[in-house]
């Protein structure tokens, strides 16, 4: 029986190491190797082309705006879900989770059909007022905000429910206004859950590709994000640029991931 247990254990170990190694470890290792094989200076040159730099800046801008939107509205929606009882709460909850089960390409199509200035529902009206959503910055932000909508809400709502509202009520009986209550009581209690949600949102937006490909028009040096830069280099048979861009984006994601595990450990400790 003992040897049978040991056999079971070692075959599981072998399987786990092989599966994760062949599926994740080795491929990631090989892309890092290929990006750096020509030397760091040439990898640096491959991503610091004008198109590359523009893509990086656009990606950071788009991420900043969409993360800010989803943080503010995400906390708002979480407060509504946790603190208000109203008809349609479950519909709201379902709506928030919806982006998780919709293909990014479909998200892009939805924004196109609604906001295209030629065939969209609201697009023509917006266009007469000088607002162009498609093939422009607002469309990219919308696509990013759509796909990353659930994360802040899903992380913050359970924390708020667990917390209860006794402290908030106590503060407001003592004369604190709603904003004071929010800044002094609510926000400090949800900060690690919120941080985790914001980081998940950031990771999701940095890597978004399908939805943005549909709405951005992928115009090099104008509406091209980093993920599209990598894809373009790959299809143009410029693997050096693709690998270097992949490494750059991968490194940014790694930093987000490290921050994620840090905030998860903080969140666990604070509960």
């Amino acid at each position: 029986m003992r040897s049978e247990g040991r056999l079971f254990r070692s075959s599981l170990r072998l399987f786990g190491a092989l599966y994760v190694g062949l599926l994740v470890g080795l491929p990631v290792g090989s892309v890092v190797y290929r990006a750096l094989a020509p030397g760091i200076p040439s990898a640096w040159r491959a991503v610091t082309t004008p198109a590359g730099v523009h893509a990086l800046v656009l990606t950071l801008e788009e991420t900043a705006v969409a993360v800010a939107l989803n943080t503010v509205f995400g906390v708002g929606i979480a407060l509504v879900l946790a603190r208000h009882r109203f008809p349609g709460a479950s519909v709201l909850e379902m709506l928030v989770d919806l982006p998780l089960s919709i293909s990014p390409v479909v998200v892009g199509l939805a924004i196109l059909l609604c906001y295209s200035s030629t065939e969209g529902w609201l697009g023509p009206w917006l266009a007469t007022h000088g607002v162009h959503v498609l093939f422009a910055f607002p469309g990219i932000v919308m696509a990013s905000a759509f796909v990353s909508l659930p994360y802040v809400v899903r992380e913050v709502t359970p924390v708020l429910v667990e917390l209860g509202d006794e402290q908030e009520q106590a503060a407001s009986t003592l004369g604190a206004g709603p904003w004071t209550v929010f800044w002094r009581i609510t926000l400090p209690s949800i900060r690690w859950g919120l941080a985790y949600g914001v980081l998940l949102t950031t990771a999701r937006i940095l890597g978004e590709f399908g939805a943005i490909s549909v709405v951005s028009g992928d115009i090099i040096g104008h509406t091209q994000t980093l993920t599209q830069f990598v894809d373009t280099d790959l299809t143009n048979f410029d693997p050096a640029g693709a690998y270097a861009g992949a490494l750059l984006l991968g490194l940014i994601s790694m930093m987000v991931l490290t921050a994620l595990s840090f905030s998860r450990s903080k969140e666990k400790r604070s509960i």
Partner: protein
Amino acid sequence: MTSATDAAASARVTHRVARAGRVLRRAPGPSLAAIYLSFLVLVPLAAVFSNAFTGGPRVLWAEITEKETFAALRLSLLCSLAVVVVNAFAGTAIAWLLVRDRFVLNRAIGAIVDLPFALPTVIAGVTLLSLYGPNSPLHVDLAFSRYAILVALAFVTLPFAVRSVQPVLEELDAETEEAAATLGASPWTVFSRITLPSLMPALLTGAGLGFARAVGEYGSVVILSGNVPFKTEVASVRIFALIGNDDLPGAAATSLALFAIAIVVLSITALVRRHYLPAEDT
């Protein structure tokens, strides 16, 4: 006369605006949340829905059963199901290693198992292409074959499988398992009789999330699969091609079908999951 009706109309508008203002002031949170979600999610999705139905149900059905579209939808469904099943087994095994086993390599496994979740899907595609593509150092060239789709989907959904099972396994008492083992149960009996039933709800949740992600996956598959119609073209790639051909009703119809597939599979996993949840009274 006209000025009188104008005045009445403008009074009505003012009244309506004032009423909307009152609603907003009384419940600013719910109203703002509703407005944000409407313009970001609800109205755009309604546009897809309405576009899919512009020609009536018969045209919608014809769009979905168009040969190339249907092949793409079927490929997405079958590949996602296969990958979810494989990852349910692999994910459970890996979660078990992370929780119950002490072995040097396990720390490394734990460190990289979240990578697919943090890595952008395009990078996932580039990453897999560099190892399993035409210039593969292992001499395994999967590019432009159906295996490429399976590998890409397995890569992006691995964390769902592992991370949904892991916390439940951590909560689970190892004592019951040890007691069964002392009484002579083989490791497999212990696992299938004691561990697995408690893991089933989490396993199914992870499988549902993984399926929803896999069936609509675009970035990693588009790079690796070659997108050959009838062979390696998945549903999301087909939708992208239809948008590119300016066939928006076709794209909307395919999107609707894809969404329906995701909802049906998620509902089935939810139903099966309920079966495994402990009954409350007994």
